[in-house]
């Protein structure tokens, strides 16, 4: 992120995703289903067998992933140089894992459950945005290391 305001975009998006995942987790543990504007899809998805992994709501797994991304994205705000680059790689790695999983869940919604949960779709969208931003940062850092190589040569 080159601009000062832009650097807050990643933690901001992570917070949105975290809030969404925590909300879905709490509802799951309370045995409630998220509001869906009269459409039954949220209930279908969140009570499907796929909504849990060995008793742990997948939303809680997402919340755990987002909590890690929040810590890394906040740390990145203070880091510089190689440390910033390493933190960006960790963020990219976590976002990539998240993007794979939300793709799987969205695929299940479309093909197996045949119903969509808006809250899950928002989480999927945020995760892909984060992957895009992290990948862009990885690319920018990579292009700088390329210049470094030329300079050394």
């Amino acid at each position, binding site marked *: 992120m080159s601009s000062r305001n832009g650097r807050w975009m990643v933690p901001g998006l992570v917070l949105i995703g975290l809030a969404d995942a925590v909300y879905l987790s709490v509802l799951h543990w*309370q*045995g*409630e*289903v998220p509001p869906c504007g009269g459409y*039954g899809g949220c*209930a*279908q998805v969140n*009570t499907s*067998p*796929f909504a*849990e*992994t*060995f008793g742990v709501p*997948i939303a809680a*797994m997402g919340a755990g992933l987002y909590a890690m991304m929040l810590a890394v994205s906040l740390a990145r705000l203070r880091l*510089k*140089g*190689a440390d*910033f*680059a*390493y933190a960006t*790689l*960790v963020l*990219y*790695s*976590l*976002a*990539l*894992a*998240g*993007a*794979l*999983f939300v793709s*799987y869940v969205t695929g299940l919604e479309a093909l*197996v*459950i*045949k*119903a969509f949960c808006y809250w899950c779709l928002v989480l999927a969208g945020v995760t892909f945005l984060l992957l895009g931003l992290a990948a862009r940062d*990885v690319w920018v*850092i*990579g292009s*700088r*290391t*390329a210049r*470094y*190589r030329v300079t*050394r040569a």
Partner: protein
Amino acid sequence: MVLMPARRWTLLVLLASTLGVALGVVAIALNLISVSTQMARTRSPGSLPPSYLGGLASQGRVHYIGSLDAPVVVTEWSDFQCPACRVYALTRDPVLEQQYAGTGQVRFVYRNYPFLGFESVLAAQAAECAADQGKYWEYRSLLWQRQKGENQGAFSPDNLKSFAAELGLDQARFNACLDNGTHRSEVLAEQREAEASGINATPTIFVNDRKMQGVPTIDAMKAAIEEELAKKR
């Protein structure tokens, strides 16, 4: 900003990508394993506490858990295609049954109100056909797990027959029961009974005579049950 040599960065990016993909794949694999385990595990009388077993039975075509002498009767009218019924059945029933059914104070009765279309009626009939072979609870549990949309084929005759095969029912007997509509008139009679009782949505739950609609919270259900129990003391 001088960072590191390009080759090292490239290796690190590859490593991060591999780790990310590995983490995602592991999470997906665990979910799939968990689901396949869950699909194979349906609620059965054998998995309930022994105190349930005396009252886990079918009385005529009415299925219930708990003592016949219980002062409080919780009657649940549901449709196997109704998502809210599924939520109620999967999240409320196990908790409430666990807490109250073994006490002899509460009986949980499960009734059909198949109003969402032909697959609702078929599913209810199939559950009754499974009941003929002593597998109502397992079949009911499987129906909730396999619910997908309304009248889109999830409860087609072929699928309903495959569920029976999955549970190890006598396939020929089950198929004949379903194909001949052995329990159709009973299921439709239940539907008429529900409508005559003023029920127009599912799930509709009665705690004795107190009518509750939608998906009441567990706390709301417990409060209603406790109030009824207090009246009987």
